[in-house]
C-alpha cells in the first residue's frame, strides 16, 4: 500500500465506488459522509439498472456508458439484481413513429433488443395496457439502490479503507493554495477535528457545489429533483418503459412487492429542501396507468423526491435537457491543487465514474496503478456491517 492518503467526501454510489477503486490501487482511503451512507440521492433512486435504452436516441454517450456498466455490474455484483429485463411499450401511433429512431439508437450504442408483438408482450406481462401496439425487450433490470453501493463500501473496508458515517465536512484545510485535508464534525461524539490528506475528492452529488465553494471554486451542478411513487403490488415482472422521448412518469420499476412509478424533473437550489408536490403524485399515477391500467387503483405505499446531481448550466429549466453523463473536475485548472470533484452520471455508471476519477487521482499523486474494478467480484452487502 502506498503512503498516499485520499479523503472522499460523500458516501453515495459515486463515493462508494471510488473508495473501492482507489483502495484496490493501493491508496489509503478515508470516506466521510454526513449521515448514514447512501442517505443522499443514491438510496432514493428508482432502482433501475439501466440498459441505456432510455438515452439511446438523445444522449448516446450516456447510453453507451450504461450498457457497458450494466454488463460489468452483472459480473462483479451477482445477486444484486433481478435479471428481469425491461420492456419499452408503444401505446400510440406517435410512439410507433419513434420506433425506428429507437431501434437505430440502440443498435448504434450496442444495446441488444428484441421486438415483441402485442400478443407476445401481453403473454409475458398480462397487466400491460391491452391497447399496446408492440414492445421492445432490453436488458434493463431491478437493482437494490442501497445494497449495491454497500457492496462497494464493504469490499473497500475489508481491503483497508476507513468509512465514517455521521461525519460532516465543515471546511477544507489549506496549505497555501493546496487542499491538504478536511475539517469534520463527528455528530456521534460531538467533536470537531481535521483529517490530513494528500488529495481530497468531492463526491457530494447534488451537494457538490456547496462543498466546492469551501475550496473557493465553482462546479456547475444543478440539483434536479424527481418525484417517485411506490404503490403496493408487483404488477409486472419486467421494468416497463414508455417507448417515446424520455418524459414524466414513463418508467415503472417492480421492486419486491412494490411497483415504483417515476419520475418528474425540475430544478432547485438546495437539495435539502425537496417537497413532493401533490400534482406530481397525481401525474405519476396517471402516466403509470397509461402503461399499466391497474396502477390507477393500487394503494400508495410512499411518495418521495430525490435530487439528481446533473452537470450543466444553472439556467436549466426542467433538467430534462441536461445530459445524464458525468464530469470530473481537476480544480488545479482554477489554481486549487489537491482537490478533485466528480459529479453527474447514474448509479448504474458509478463504477466507470470512479475509474475515470481514480485515473486522474493516481496520475496527480504520481502513482502507476491500473484500475481493477472490472474484474474484482464484490463482497455481499452484509459484509459492510460485519
Amino acid at each position, binding site marked *: 500500500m502506498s503512503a498516499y492518503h485520499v479523503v472522499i467526501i460523500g458516501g453515495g454510489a459515486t463515493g462508494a465506488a471510488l473508495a473501492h477503486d482507489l483502495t484496490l490501487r493501493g491508496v489509503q482511503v478515508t470516506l466521510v459522509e454526513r*449521515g*448514514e451512507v*447512501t*442517505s443522499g440521492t*443514491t*438510496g*432514493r433512486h428508482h*432502482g433501475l439498472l439501466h440498459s441505456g435504452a432510455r438515452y439511446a436516441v438523445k444522449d448516446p454517450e450516456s447510453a453507451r456508458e450504461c450498457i457497458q456498466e450494466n454488463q460489468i455490474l452483472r459480473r462483479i455484483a*451477482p*445477486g*444484486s*439484481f*433481478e*435479471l*428481469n*429485463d425491461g420492456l419499452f411499450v408503444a401505446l400510440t401511433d406517435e410512439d410507433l413513429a419513434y420506433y425506428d429512431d429507437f431501434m437505430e439508437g440502440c443498435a448504434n450504442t450496442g444495446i441488444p433488443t428484441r421486438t415483441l408483438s402485442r400478443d407476445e408482450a401481453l*403473454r*409475458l*406481462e*398480462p*397487466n400491460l395496457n391491452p391497447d399496446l401496439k408492440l414492445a421492445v425487450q432490453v436488458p434493463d433490470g*431491478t437493482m*437494490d*439502490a*442501497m*445494497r449495491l453501493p454497500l457492496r462497494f463500501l464493504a469490499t473497500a473496508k475489508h481491503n483497508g479503507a476507513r468509512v465514517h458515517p*455521521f461525519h*460532516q465536512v465543515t471546511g477544507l484545510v489549506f496549505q497555501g493554495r493546496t487542499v491538504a485535508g478536511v475539517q469534520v464534525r463527528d*455528530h*456521534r*461524539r*460531538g467533536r470537531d477535528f481535521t483529517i490530513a490528506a494528500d488529495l481530497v475528492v468531492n463526491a457530494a452529488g447534488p451537494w457538490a457545489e456547496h462543498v466546492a465553494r469551501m475550496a473557493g471554486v465553482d462546479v456547475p451542478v444543478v440539483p434536479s429533483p424527481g418525484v*417517485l411513487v*411506490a404503490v403496493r*403490488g*408487483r*404488477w*409486472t*415482472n419486467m421494468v416497463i418503459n414508455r417507448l417515446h422521448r424520455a418524459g414524466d412518469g414513463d418508467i415503472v420499476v417492480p*421492486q*419486491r*412487492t*412494490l411497483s*415504483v412509478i417515476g419520475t418528474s424533473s425540475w430544478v432547485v437550489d438546495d437539495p*435539502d*429542501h425537496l417537497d*413532493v408536490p*401533490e400534482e406530481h403524485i397525481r401525474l405519476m399515477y396517471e402516466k403509470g396507468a397509461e402503461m399499466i391500467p*391497474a396502477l390507477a387503483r*393500487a394503494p400508495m*405505499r*410512499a*411518495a*418521495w423526491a*430525490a435530487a439528481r446531481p446533473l452537470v450543466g448550466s444553472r439556467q436549466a429549466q426542467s433538467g430534462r435537457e441536461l445530459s445524464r453523463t458525468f464530469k470530473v473536475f481537476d480544480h488545479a485548472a482554477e489554481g486549487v491543487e489537491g482537490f478533485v470533484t466528480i459529479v453527474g452520471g447514474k448509479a448504474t455508471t458509478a463504477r466507470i465514474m470512479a475509474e475515470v476519477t481514480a485515473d486522474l487521482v493516481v496520475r496527480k499523486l504520481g502513482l502507476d496503478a491500473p484500475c481493477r474494478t472490472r474484474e474484482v467480484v464484490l463482497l*455481499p452487502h*452484509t459484509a459492510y*456491517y*460485519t
Partner: protein
Amino acid sequence: MSSPSTVQLRVFRYKPGDPAPHYDTFAVPVTPRTTVLEALQAIRRDQDPSLMLRHSCHHASCGTCGLRVDGQEVLACVTPLADRGPVVTVEPLQNAPLLGDLVVDMGPFYAVFTQAGMPLVRSTEATAASRPAAGIERLTRFENCLECGLCVSTCPVAATDPLYLGPAAMAAAWRVVQEPRGQNPARALAWVDQEHGCWRCHLAFECSTVCPNDVQPGQAIAALRQRLALGEPAPPGPAAAATRPALAPTGPARRVGLRAWLDPRGRDVGYWAFVLHRLTGLALVVYLLLHLWVLRLLARGPAAWDEFIALARSPLFLALDGLLLFGVLFHGLNGVRVALVGLGAAARRQRGLFWAVLLLTLLLLAAGVAALVAAVH
C-alpha cells in the same frame, strides 16, 4: 392540502459518554402527508444538525429507517405524523447496540445471518426464470425481508437472550427449507435446532405484527419447529454455535434476565399475552401440586376433610378459586389463540384475538364466579 399544523416530537437522545439518555422536544410543522422521517430530517436541517438517524430509500424498501414511534416499531419513511396527537415520542430500536440518538448498530443483526455458514440473505434472481404471469400482483416473495430489524426489536426473547437467533434470521432459514435453490435445507434445519434457535421462541407473534413487508417470521419459526418435530430428522450438521457478539458495548444499560421480563417499557400486546400465558401456566402447575396435597387429606379421614371444606367456604378461599378460574380460562383460550396464530390461520389478527380471549375469559369468569357464589350460599 390543508395548511400545516404543528406537532411536538419528543426525540430520544444519547451520545457515547452521556451518563444517561434524555429526550429533546422539537416543534415541527406537519401536513397530512408528512412522515416521521421527513419531520426528523427537517429537525436535523433546521434545528439540530447533530441529530443522528438512518434512512436511505424513503419507500419501505431498504429497511434502514426502523424506529419506535410511541413505543411501536415502524419504518419512519412510511409512518405519517398527522393524527397521532400533539406529542409524538420517537426512540431507537431495542435489542441492538445503540450508536447514538436514533441509530443502532446493525452488526449483530447481520452477524446472525452469517453465522449459519450459508447465504441466508439471498439473491433476488428468483423471478427471472419463473416468469410469473396471472396473479403476479399478489405475489409475495421469499426475498421480502427488508432486514430492518423491527421484528428483533419487538421480540421478548431477543430481549432476554442475547444469543437468540431471532425472527428475521429464522425466517430466512425457513426460506431455505421451502425453496432451497441449490442450498442444503438440512443445514438450515440443523442450525435452528438449538438452544438459542427455534425452540426458544415463546410465540409472542409481535414479530409478524410489526413486520412491514409480510414476511411472517413468527409463522416461519412455528413451521421450522413443525418440520423438525414431524419431518425427517435433520442430520447433525456442522451447525455453528451461537456466537453473537455481546450486545450494547456502548449504549446505556439495557434490561437483562428476570427483571427484563416484567419491565413494561416498549412492550406490545403480544408480549403481554406471552407474559400472562407463562404466569398462568406456572400458576396452574403450582395449583396442581396444591391440589394433590389437599387430596392427601382424604386419607386422614372425614374430620380433616370437613375442616378443609369449611376453609374452602371462606371468602379468601373463594377469591383464590376465582383466580384459579381466571388462570384456567385464560391459559386455555389463549392456548387456542396461540395454536391458531402458529398455524398461520389468524396471524394478522393476533392482537385482536388477544383482546377477544381476554373478553371471553372475563365473561366466563363472571359467570363462573356467580355460579360459585350461588353454590356456596
